[in-house]
């Protein structure tokens, strides 16, 4: 039994869990790691490269070794650190990265072959024969690499996202963080206190200290109670602040439901915290000392050992040794002795080291090797060249402490070396503005100093904001600084691990040095040091020190490593949190959506919109059959289509006409009230941007339309023109896209149909000619706008009514027009008809084409300075000879395929003979064959010529005849009748 007395676990409740299928028990308050240790489990996993047996090394989020897959099935979560997995009843964990059982991993053979796997070996081999890389070498490497495996199933849990704002964000709820939070909260400031642990207290929970007259956990509980009572302070437990972004924005993940068998609401929440000031009180991480075979299960950080004993009452072994280069290791030893454990040796390289308690002290000695196949059994202690073996099931290694300054370097500010601390400290400048560092993370390592510094730092941060805070009475606590000796590794012949997870040893660093991979970034990249899931928390500084020793430079001369977000790995599900799947993006519905759905329409995504694509009827076997019917019915009778998605912008003001003149390539100010004009917009670089119509409703009032796709960008561009280019013009803009349901009514019977719904409005050709517009009422007094415009080439109108009536109007038109052949049509038929008419749409207006290519070169007025007109005069744009043409197959049975490239007959088919491409194609029921539109070199001059459309992608090549793009009613008579 390795459970000790005491500890912050609730022994009144027992939790059952399994590891590799075997059942164990623990208590609330345990982590998976503490429970495993308490159950005598030492072997927890295998290392990445050499598949060495590994155990639990740390007691927090820096853990490099004890990675498990937590849970199973779709909830399986690989690479979870056992040291931060809060125990719950029914927890399942399995070890990873081994072939065969954990205690007999077949890939452990890699360890025997390790000389062949030295740093960078793979850059030097596997090059011959060439084909073997993808076929043999790489698949082998990929299978062996990686750590845990994904379930390959969709994550069943829910995730949430939210936004918090505060005056002061305190990161870390240890001594400094608690003192800071108390100081700030009492001042009335709005404070957020976040800690990655499930229990506040930080390192205070891991010590046997007293604060004032209370033991540390009791003092913590008292502070916590006060903080919880203050409405201006919010405690975020189980919350990791993982990144410091610009202007005081921090990313944090709250693990809302990870400690439960299944989450009650959400599993995790992503908080974006906007903080006026931030205190980083993240404490320190202990570092180890590389020595031969320093990676066996049972070898751990001394501070972690102390934490397991105090907080979790868990001992990893009966006989324990400590290897320390500082006084803090002796504190661990003394605490263990006080807990009744057997300390078999304390090894300290300092000859003048003093014992703090009753244990055998080996001063002036180092650990030089270890034994124990699947777990530590003995350590070899060498003093003055003489080795002795001492029994120990666990070894605590104390190499000094590195401040957790990660967030302070997220803006790429470089930490500075402190000889006094033998560690990097946060730089005074270059950190995220508004962030200061407090407590041990700032080098204020004793409990007393951390408390005081935390309170003072909070006071200073609030003073910056003009908030006065007084310092609280803080309890008296330990202020023993302790002495330390720089011992970065124990030299020796055997492998000594620096980065445990990625199996980087001192030898690898030496080899990198030998091969001139000396800059720290080369070192990391050549050896993979610090690239593992622990992000080098326990390795980087030590590695730098080893490299410094090799180059003969100081550590700061050798380099400093800066950290990037995230502080600890963050699940992709919470970052992409909230709605996904069908709710990945909003869905915009047209006003006639309910009616169309009731008719059985098939819908299609058009940007964020869902539009009716076609309306199948019983008996129609293919979509083509449906679309052909819709087209023919429209051209023969009347068709109705919801075109609400076109952007609509209301333009008012005395200078509205002059404003639109500058936006459109063609004139708009000259448009008469009550009329509509087609408009072409260019980008300032002279290329076609968007097209639509301008309707002049009054002298000072236009309504313009944009394409569906460009509604947002065009509106933005219009505001840019209004506010930035011509601010002196009197123009007001507002988008009205959603306000009006707009239905296209097209076909020879369009007028007849509309006559049945308008309220006494004269629709005759004389009263309301082609391109007229007017306000009117329909269906007994409903406000509406009518535009006589056509996209299909037929006699056509667009009728707009308030959006809430669109659905009913659609139903009414179809109903009252039954005898006229009124037929709803969708985007497919719309597309067919516009191709038949030769109108450009998205496939032609793709941002790469010019007015000239679209056959609208003459529309670009040289008489005015509109956006983009000047740049159309560049040599290359004038020389562009590709122009929009119609294309028809020589053999009517042949397809026409958008995306095929155009060639002269008999020409070579390669990039340099390419003469254009097919932009749009469809089957035309009007023509009786497939047709297409395309851009063709010298197109206008080639009407009647037979060319070749090459589609090697689908193995087809078709002969097409170049024709006018206007397949229907080329003279436009139908529009005007």
């Amino acid at each position, binding site marked *: 039994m390795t459970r000790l007395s005491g500890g912050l676990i609730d022994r009144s409740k027992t939790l059952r869990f399994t590891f590799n299928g075997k059942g164990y028990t623990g208590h609330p308050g345990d982590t998976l790691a503490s429970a495993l240790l308490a159950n005598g489990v030492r072997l927890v996993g295998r290392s*990445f490269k050499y598949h060495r047996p590994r155990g639990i090394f740390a007691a927090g989020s820096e853990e490099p070794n004890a990675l498990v897959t937590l849970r199973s099935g779709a909830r*399986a979560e*690989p*690479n979870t650190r056992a040291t931060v997995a809060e125990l719950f009843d029914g927890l399942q964990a399995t070890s990873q990265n081994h072939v065969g059982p954990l205690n007999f991993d077949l890939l452990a053979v890699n360890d025997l072959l390790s000389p062949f796997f*030295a740093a960078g070996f793979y*850059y*030097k*081999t*596997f*090059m011959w024969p*060439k084909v073997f*890389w*993808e076929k043999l070498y*790489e698949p082998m490497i990929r*299978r062996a*690499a*990686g*750590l845990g*495996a*994904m379930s*390959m*199933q969709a994550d069943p849990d829910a995730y949430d996202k939210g936004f918090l704002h505060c005056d002061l964000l305190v990161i870390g709820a240890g001594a400094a963080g608690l003192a800071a939070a108390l100081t700030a909260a009492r001042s009335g400031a709005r404070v957020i206190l976040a800690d990655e642990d499930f229990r506040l207290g930080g390192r205070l929970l891991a010590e046997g200290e007293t604060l004032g007259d209370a033991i540390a956990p009791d003092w913590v509980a008292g502070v916590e109670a006060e903080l919880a009572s203050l409405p201006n302070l919010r405690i975020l437990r189980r919350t990791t602040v993982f990144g410091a*972004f610009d202007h005081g924005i921090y*990313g944090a993940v709250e693990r809302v439901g990870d400690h439960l068998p299944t989450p009650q609401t959400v599993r995790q929440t992503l908080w974006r915290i906007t903080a006026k000031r931030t205190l980083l009180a993240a404490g320190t991480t202990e570092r180890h000392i590389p020595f031969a075979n320093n990676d066996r299960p049972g070898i751990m950080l001394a501070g972690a050992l102390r934490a397991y004993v105090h907080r979790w009452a868990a001992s990893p072994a009966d006989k324990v040794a400590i290897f320390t280069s500082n006084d803090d290791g002796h504190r661990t030893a003394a605490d263990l002795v006080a807990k009744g454990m057997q300390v078999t040796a304390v090894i300290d390289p300092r000859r003048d080291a003093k014992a703090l308690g009753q244990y055998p002290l080996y001063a002036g000695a180092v650990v030089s090797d270890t034994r124990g196949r699947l777990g530590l059994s003995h350590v070899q202690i060498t003093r003055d060249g003489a080795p002795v073996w001492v029994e120990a099931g666990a070894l605590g290694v104390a190499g000094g402490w590195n401040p957790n300054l990660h967030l302070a370097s*997220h*803006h*790429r500010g470089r930490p500075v070396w402190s000889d006094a601390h033998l560690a990097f400290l946060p730089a005074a400048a270059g950190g995220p503005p508004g962030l200061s560092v407090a407590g041990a993370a700032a080098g204020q390592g004793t409990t007393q100093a951390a408390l005081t510094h935390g309170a003072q730092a909070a006071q200073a941060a609030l003073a910056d904001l003009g908030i006065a805070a007084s310092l609280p009475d803080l309890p008296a606590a330990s202020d023993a600084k302790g002495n330390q000796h720089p011992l970065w590794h124990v030299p020796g012949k055997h492998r000594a691990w620096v980065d445990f997870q990625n199996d980087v040893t001192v030898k690898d660093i030496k080899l990198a040095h030998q091969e*001139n991979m000396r800059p720290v970034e*080369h070192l990391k*990249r050549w050896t993979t040091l610090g690239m593992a899931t622990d992000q080098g928390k326990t390795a980087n500084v030590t590695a730098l020190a080893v490299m410094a020793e090799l180059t003969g430079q100081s550590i700061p001369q050798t380099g400093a490593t800066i950290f*990037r977000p995230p502080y600890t790995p963050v*699940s*992709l599900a919470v970052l*992409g*949190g909230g709605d*996904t*799947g*069908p709710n*990945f*993006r909003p869905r915009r519905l047209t006003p006639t959506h309910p009616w169309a759905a009731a008719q059985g329409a098939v819908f299609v*995504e058009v940007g964020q919109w869902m539009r009716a694509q076609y309306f199948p009827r019983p008996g129609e076997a293919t979509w083509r059959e449906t679309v052909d019917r819709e087209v023919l019915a429209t051209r023969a009778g009347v068709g109705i289509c919801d075109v609400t998605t076109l952007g609509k912008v209301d333009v008012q003001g005395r200078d509205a006409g002059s404003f639109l003149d500058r936006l459109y390539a063609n004139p708009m100010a000259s448009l008469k009230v009550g009329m509509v004009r087609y408009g072409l917009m260019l*980008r*300032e670089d002279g290329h076609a*941007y968007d097209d639509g119509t301008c309707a002049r409703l009054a002298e000072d009032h236009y309504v313009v339309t944009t394409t569906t796709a460009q509604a947002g960008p065009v509106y933005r561009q219009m505001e840019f023109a209004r506010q930035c280019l011509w601010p002196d013009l009197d123009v007001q803009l507002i988008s009205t896209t959603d306000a009006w349901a707009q239905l296209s009514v097209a076909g020879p019977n369009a007028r007849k149909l509309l006559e049945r719904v308008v309220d006494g409005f004269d629709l005759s050709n004389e009263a309301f000619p082609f391109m007229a517009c007017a306000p009117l009422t329909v269906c007994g007094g409903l406000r509406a706008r009518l535009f006589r415009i056509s996209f299909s080439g037929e006699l056509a109108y667009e009728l707009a009514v308030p959006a809430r009536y669109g659905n009913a109007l659609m139903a009414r038109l179809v109903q009252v027009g039954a005898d006229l052949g009124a037929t709803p049509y969708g985007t497919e038929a719309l597309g067919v008809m516009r191709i038949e008419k030769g109108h450009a749409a998205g*496939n032609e207006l*793709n*941002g790469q084409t010019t007015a000239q290519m679209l056959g609208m070169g003459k529309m670009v007025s040289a008489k005015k300075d509109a956006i983009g007109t000047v740049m159309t005069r*560049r*040599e*290359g744009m004038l020389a562009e000879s590709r122009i929009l043409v119609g294309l028809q197959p020589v053999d009517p049975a042949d397809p026409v395929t*958008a*995306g*095929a*490239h155009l060639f002269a007959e008999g020409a070579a088919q*390669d*990039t*340099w003979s*390419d003469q254009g491409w097919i932009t749009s194609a469809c089957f035309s029921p009007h023509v009786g064959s497939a047709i297409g539109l395309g851009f063709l070199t010298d197109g206008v001059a080639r009407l009647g010529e037979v060319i070749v459309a090459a589609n090697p*992608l*689908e193995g087809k090549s078709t002969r097409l005849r170049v024709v006018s793009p206007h397949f229907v009613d080329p003279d436009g008579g139908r529009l005007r009748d």
Partner: protein
Amino acid sequence: MRFSGFRVIAEALTGHKGWKPLWRNPDPQPAYDYVIVGGGGHGLATAYYLAKTFRKARIAVLEKGWLGSGNIGRNTTIIRSNYLLPGNEPFYEFSMKLWEGLEQEFNFNAMVSQRGILNLIHTDGQRDAYRRRGNAMLLAGADAELLNRDQVREMAPFLNFDNARFPIKGGLVQRRAGTARHDGVAWGYARGADLHGVDLIQNCEVTGFRIENGRVLGVETSRGYIGAGKVGVAVAGNSSRVMAMAGMRLPIENHVLQAFVSEGLKPLIPGVITFGAGHFYVSQSDKGGLVFGGDIDGYNSYAQRGNLPVIEDVAEGGMALMPMIGRARLLRAWGGIMDMSMDGTPIIDKTPVGGLYLNAGWCYGGFKATPASGYAFAHLLATGQTHDTTRFMRLDRFERGYVIDEKGMGAQPNLH
């Protein structure tokens, strides 16, 4: 020293004592025939081809930090030649062909891995555009395949086929595309250049150009003046800053592009996959990390770090496309500074200053271009003639009206 499997075994058995430095650390000479400014991928490749293929000597590469510290050390390692326009596709296909023999040529395993790229199609319009592109690729001698939904499903069954906001309707595949180990590419070229006598000078920052009578004579550096016959600048991410020292303004803005890697995982993604209805693309490294990214942050930046909205946007895209990656964790994020050009296409050209040549504007496509960029730039430097594949990538194409705008976004760099 030649690298091979036998050498690795021999060294393993003799304690790795024989490995030599991958390159020397020479001090700068007073003058060189060719000075390449920038020891990133393109600069190193340029020096390599200048020395090896064009047999030039007296070449120096000046790098202000460590070799490979530019964007070659901070990208998502994708190689592909799936471009649309004739100004681009032949160049990237030339690059692809160089990738295919690269490791054997420079005797360094850069892990060029042709596991394919799959660009997903979600709309009919997208299919038309990808068909045009796929055909353009084939017409330029590259490979391409158009897949229907079922074929995509067979290739990547873990994608969201059943309840997606933007359903997958197909895909364009280039099977010869894939990934390469980005640092390995830099090291391979560096080692190759060094073996051919190029001086690779680290921690040597160019602080000015010495220009007389419209001709460059050399460069001022943090390690003193260095004379030069010709100077080639290949400093993507810093092009405007460096060329401003020669009195030039460029059609370039610098933007930050973030990229991400997950914790190591057993193999789950076959090649490169790009989402067609959001900003997300992903591949998996040989070590097991999912390497993924999305769009640039979208504002001018030289900060080599980005912000949270893009991280969220990329993760949202990933979750929408492949909901099975939810419980994988993001391990590291980093930011590279992109030379975003005004039409999304790079520039390899001589400049109005005699003897001064520019290689810039790679947007976020510089990595895949490394071999061809180096080769073409070396060709230009060595012969004074533009390499055939870069004949459209001229500096004057903007004023002359011959832009190469793959995306059709116009002169707004953050949209390319």
